[in-house]
């Protein structure tokens, strides 16, 4: 059910396959301020943007071993913002020269009945969490610093507890397939955040 690696797919028209390049790291709570300050200096000049999002992850268990995963996200602090549905493929491993994690990515905005629709389709919610943090941009790079809150009572986004004493830092770029020089730019940017944060490509399969 996963899309095959992009390099194998012929370009036959339709939508362009977008890939997400990702670097992740974390920063402890007490060093958050210095990181935010440094990011404000390094990134594009804009008003600091904070967000509170509620993300639900839906699984469709097929006959194959690996279930199909879709992520639905909604904003808790911006009324009227559309729901956001995202598919992330398996990371393309193997290329040691690529400095970032690369995976197929499909993003769409949806209306508010997304969860009902997914339920009708047969998806089941696997887990959900609330993400609260800051968003920065530099050109096409997006840097998000957020804290993950576990939802104690399902469906109740007010009753949450922090998952850990750190903030997750993610540097991501969504670009058409094949543009590997993007990962070089990302690595250069990540160098500027050391030693506060070590942004690196972390293979989630290793952590299972």
């Amino acid at each position: 059910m996963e899309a095959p690696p992009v390099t194998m797919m012929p370009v036959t028209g339709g939508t362009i396959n977008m890939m997400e390049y990702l670097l992740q790291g974390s920063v402890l709570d007490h060093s958050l301020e210095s990181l935010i300050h440094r990011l404000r200096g390094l990134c594009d000049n804009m008003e600091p943007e904070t967000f509170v999002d509620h993300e639900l992850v839906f699984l469709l268990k097929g006959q194959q071993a690996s279930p199909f995963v879709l992520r639905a996200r909604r904003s808790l602090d911006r009324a009227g913002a559309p729901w956001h549905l995202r598919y992330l493929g398996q990371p393309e491993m193997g290329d040691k020269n690529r400095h970032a994690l690369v995976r197929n990515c499909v993003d769409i905005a949806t209306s508010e009945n997304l969860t009902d629709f997914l339920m009708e389709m047969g998806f089941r919610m696997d887990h959900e969490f609330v993400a609260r943090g800051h968003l920065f941009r530099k050109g096409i790079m997006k840097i998000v610093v957020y804290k993950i809150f576990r939802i104690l009572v399902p469906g109740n986004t007010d009753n949450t507890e922090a998952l850990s004493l750190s903030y997750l830092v993610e540097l991501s770029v969504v670009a058409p397939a094949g543009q590997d020089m993007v990962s070089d730019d990302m690595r250069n940017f990540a160098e500027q955040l050391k030693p506060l944060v070590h942004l690196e490509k972390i293979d989630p399969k290793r952590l299972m």
Partner: protein
Amino acid sequence: MQREEKQLEASLDALLSQVADLKNSLGSFIYKLENEYDRLTWPSVLDSFALLSGQLNTLNKVLKHEKTPLFRNQVIIPLVLSPDRDEDLMRQTEGRVPVFSHEVVPDHLRTKPDPEVEEQEKQLTTDAARIGADAAQKQIQSLNKMCSNLLEKISKEERESESGGLRPNKQTFNPADTNALVAAVAFGKGLSNWRPAGSSGPSQPGQPGAGTVLAGASGLQQVQMAGAPNQQQPMLSGVQMAQAGQPGKMPSGIKTNIKSASMHPYQRFDLKVLRGAV
């Protein structure tokens, strides 16, 4: 001649904008120091200094640019001095210089440094001339050597501390936390209270009625399936209990359904399945 004039004008404009930027950042830095001194942190001060040094660098670059004519060759002479207010001048200098008069001109148009500074410079040049070329060269070399030694020592110390462990007070991130957070975002490790990390979780109580029917149907299938994998959804266990009586009532109907139907809900919309599942 015209080209030179154009060059002069262009370089003057560039210089003006650079100096204006520098003035603004100096102004904001001073404001920060005066008004937010109790909340000010060292990184913030460092950032301001870095900004100023960057701007000074660009200013230097603009001055050294090959297209910039030598300003040293230009002379500014005041043509008219008057003690009256000059509105144009006020506007151009943002209200700082209201009058182009005898007291303002010597300060603003001076080219020589202060007398004390001039004295010190003269002193330094005579000292330098007195030492002699060879001795001066030797001193330069020893200074360079000492600087490089110092740099080496500092970098060695930094490398050792990073690998050794200046951990307690300098740790700004925790790798274990990084792994935990990435695992949470990637596949929900640690995000649900009532099941072990990693396995699938229960659905939320806000499920619509139709969803429950579908869940019930797939629950029936799972009851019959032999050797269900470990990944079997415990979330449907509640529904399974409720429907446990039904398999006993119509076992044969369910079995045929299993053969024809797959797990995918869409394929369940087959008449054979609908008859048996409901």
